[in-house]
């Protein structure tokens, strides 16, 4: 029997980006908040310190910072005629665990979405017409977000200044800025910090891209280009390009994360209580099923507690947000046969994978001198930045040279024709290691009625609850898009001086065995119609208005760009409405 604890105003399920940000906003408004984090407490000092943090085997290969999949994995199948089996080792995507969540081991690649992304379906129909959109795939379920870029621009700005993004504006209030991304959505002002130093592989990419008439620019980065004090008074340092960023925590206080930009202020607030090693099993509803009364959780010693709360915020990794809703009976589960129901619908991923460019042996690329967001890139093929009328697909990708390190277990390229092992392999590795540039393609993932999340009928977690089941394959649209851009990027590779350019691009079937992206999104999407969305534009559940599901699960479909900064912006947007509207009159903030 669960021990019933003293009621609080708000509880967060997870203490990562959205959990710490939402809690900070509400404790500052005077609310009592409890943060429940399933992982361990951890801090820059002493937990992220050198030398131990520079351990490729432990962090990149064994994935020490990731969700404990021996307790809670995800099951997977490519389509609903297969039997889903548990993903027994993480590879394709890497949800974080522990205080700070995935916002600790992220790379800091810090983009905004575009104006069209928020009104995607409307935009596509206006520009190309229904016939064209349908021709891209009968199963595709593009959708608008229920909010506009203009509405969240101020929150993008706030979030970028909170975490200290380093970059060069391409568009300030409609004025194109030299040196930035000319395709960028209009910003109200410059980034808080100038761009990072350009790496050699970035400079080589720049030259190649310029030669072909594209528009290279420095990747916006939350690895900071200079010391910075954020609006909360927290100090960050300059990134030193150690080359251990993604899958690692920053030892230098140089990467925007909850530990560097939010938690030191939050944890000092007497209205806040952090409880780590606490696994939330479900949200409790009252007898009407329309109001949450709190959560049930189990602590590290196995003791069960009920934490009553006026508001429940699901602030976990997107896949875990969806699972929490399903386990709690909030919202109608999606049924792919009828297309009815919403929870689990429009699960999307990210199309990734670019070419490998083998350079002359006189070019010392030095990929180990790097950060998590060291790219020089182009947005000429991003989103809807190019005319799709005659292309037979929707969507796009950014392209750039973004080598986030040269750690050799992961990175030891050999050109085509090299044996897979033996003396020739070894000699090819020695010859090419420091003379090879990886170019990244990274882009949209179209939603399909065939791709969704639900509860697994067979496999259970360590507490006996069903695993989340993922049914996913890349729609043909995404393959056509990615392969079209792959051809263009091979030309860039040649213009970079590549002696051999190995073509990239996404292929079917999607596999869980190769790392691609940790930008899993959707499944509890936002919108303006309860029949096709789980939450409204404030990420408030339509069915249970005192439950908010924050983060990437709210994206109706995935965008071209890494999603963290957009998650930060929609979170701040929601919290402003909660503070100014919901707290004064609790209830639905949008009428269905």
């Amino acid at each position, binding site marked *: 029997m669960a021990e019933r604890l003293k009621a609080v105003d708000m509880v967060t399920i997870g203490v990562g980006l959205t959990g710490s940000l939402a809690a900070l906003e509400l404790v500052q408004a005077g609310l009592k908040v409890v943060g429940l984090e399933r992982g361990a407490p951890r*801090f820059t*000092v002493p937990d992220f*310190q050198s*030398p131990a943090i*520079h*351990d*490729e*085997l432990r962090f990149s*290969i*064994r*994935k020490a910072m990731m969700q404990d*999949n*021996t307790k809670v994995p995800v099951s*997977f*199948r*490519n389509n609903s005629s297969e039997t889903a*089996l*548990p*993903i*027994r*080792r993480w*590879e394709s995507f890497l949800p974080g665990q522990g205080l700070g969540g995935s916002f600790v081991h992220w790379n800091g690649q810090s983009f905004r979405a575009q104006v069209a992304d928020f009104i995607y379906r409307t935009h596509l129909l206006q520009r190309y017409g229904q016939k064209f959109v349908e021709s891209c795939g009968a199963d595709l379920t593009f959708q608008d977000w229920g909010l506009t870029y203009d509405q969240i621009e101020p929150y993008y700005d706030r979030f970028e200044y909170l975490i200290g993004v380093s970059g060069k504006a391409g568009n300030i209030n409609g004025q194109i800025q030299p040196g930035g991304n000319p395709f960028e959505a209009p910003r109200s002002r410059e980034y808080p910090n100038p761009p990072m*130093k*350009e*790496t*050699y592989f970035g*400079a080589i990419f720049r030259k190649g891209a310029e030669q072909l008439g594209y528009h290279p620019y420095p990747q916006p980065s939350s690895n900071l280009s200079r010391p910075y*004090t954020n609006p909360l008074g927290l*100090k960050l*340092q300059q990134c*030193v390009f*150690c*080359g251990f960023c993604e899958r690692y925590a920053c030892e*230098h*206080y140089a990467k925007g994360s909850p530990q560097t930009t939010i*938690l*030191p202020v939050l944890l000092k607030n007497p209205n806040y209580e952090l409880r780590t090693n606490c696994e939330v099993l479900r949200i409790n509803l009252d007898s009407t099923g329309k109001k949450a009364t709190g959560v049930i959780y189990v602590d590290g010693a196995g003791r069960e507690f009920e934490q009553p709360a006026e508001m429940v915020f699901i602030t976990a990794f997107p896949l875990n947000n969806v699972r929490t809703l399903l386990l709690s009976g909030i919202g109608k589960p999606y049924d792919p046969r009828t297309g009815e129901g919403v929870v689990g619908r429009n699960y999307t991923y990210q199309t990734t994978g670019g070419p490998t460019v083998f350079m002359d042996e006189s070019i*010392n690329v*030095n990929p180990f*001198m*790097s950060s998590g967001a060291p790219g020089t890139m182009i947005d000429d093929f991003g989103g809807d930045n190019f005319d799709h009328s005659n292309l037979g697909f929707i969507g796009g990708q950014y392209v750039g040279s973004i080598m986030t390190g*040269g*750690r*050799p*277990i992961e990175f*030891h390229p050999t050109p085509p024709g090299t044996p*897979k*092992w*033996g*003396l020739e392999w*070894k000699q090819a590795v*020695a010859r090419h*290691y*420091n003379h090879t540039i990886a170019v990244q393609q990274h882009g949209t993932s179209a939603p399909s009625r065939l791709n969704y999340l639900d509860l697994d009928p067979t*496999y*259970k977690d360590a507490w006996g609850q069903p695993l989340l089941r993922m049914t996913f394959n890349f729609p043909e649209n995404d393959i056509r898009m990615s392969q079209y851009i792959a051809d263009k990027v091979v030309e860039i590779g040649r213009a970079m001086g590549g002696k051999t350019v190995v073509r990239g691009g996404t292929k079917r*079937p999607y*596999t*869980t*065995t190769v790392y691609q992206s940790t930008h899993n999104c959707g499944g509890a999407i936002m919108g303006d119609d309860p029949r096709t969305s789980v939450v409204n534009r404030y990420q408030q559940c339509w069915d249970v208005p005192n439950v908010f599901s924050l983060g990437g699960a709210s994206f109706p479909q995935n965008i071209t760009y890494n999603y963290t900064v957009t998650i930060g912006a929609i979170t701040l947007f929601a919290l402003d409405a909660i503070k100014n509207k919901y707290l004064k009159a609790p209830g639905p903030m949008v009428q269905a």
Partner: protein
Amino acid sequence: MAEISRRTLMKVTGALGTSIVPAALVPDAASAQQDHAHAAAPAQSSPDSSPAKFTTYLFFNAEEAAFMEAAVARLIPKDEQWGGALEAGVPNYIDKQLAGAWGAGERLYRSGPWQPGTPSQGYQLPFTPAELFRTALRAIDQELAQTPFASRNPDEQDSYLKTLEAGGKDLGGVPSDVFFAHLWQCTVEGFFSDPVYGGNRDMVSWRMIGFPGAYASYYDLVDKHGIKLDRPPMSLAQDAHGHIHMDPGIPARSP
């Protein structure tokens, strides 16, 4: 932890700057290694050194160790310049991994029911890595009882490894391609991972490719495009505090 001033940072990175010289002026990586005052690993790095014979195996029995030593020597052989996986201590690395948490199934979800999946679904066998190696190695030992793998000539060894790699052979319930994939992944890990894990002896693979290891800062070098970094690599075992500067405004303690 100590708060290190910016001045210290400058001093240290300044010293690092002096080691950046044109490739032609650097004698060779091995002698540079000997000059490195803090070298923890033995400076000896001749490709002929055979540290395997000094390995204390905690997991492998004698027959298994003989196979592993012979197999990794074919997967990543030594050449005139650089030792291979055997000389790098890869069998020792794999032995310690299998004897420890990873061998016992660390970070491997191990609840049934078990059934074969599609390639997209990844590894679906009930074996832990330790069980997988033990099972497959026993089957190989039995199959090759007449002439054990280790006593065959290199061409025969390569051709046997290729049959494992191709799959289709059942090694006591472990498909041979699955075993080969594990063997290869572990060999790559042991060859390239930090020497603290018992492989990559003398940081041989890092010197071979020019990976400098666990240095903490390239801030002053990252925009010196194309420089050749000819300083000896550094292991986690050698790394020391003192190379980052701490802003005095950042509290040294956690909140």
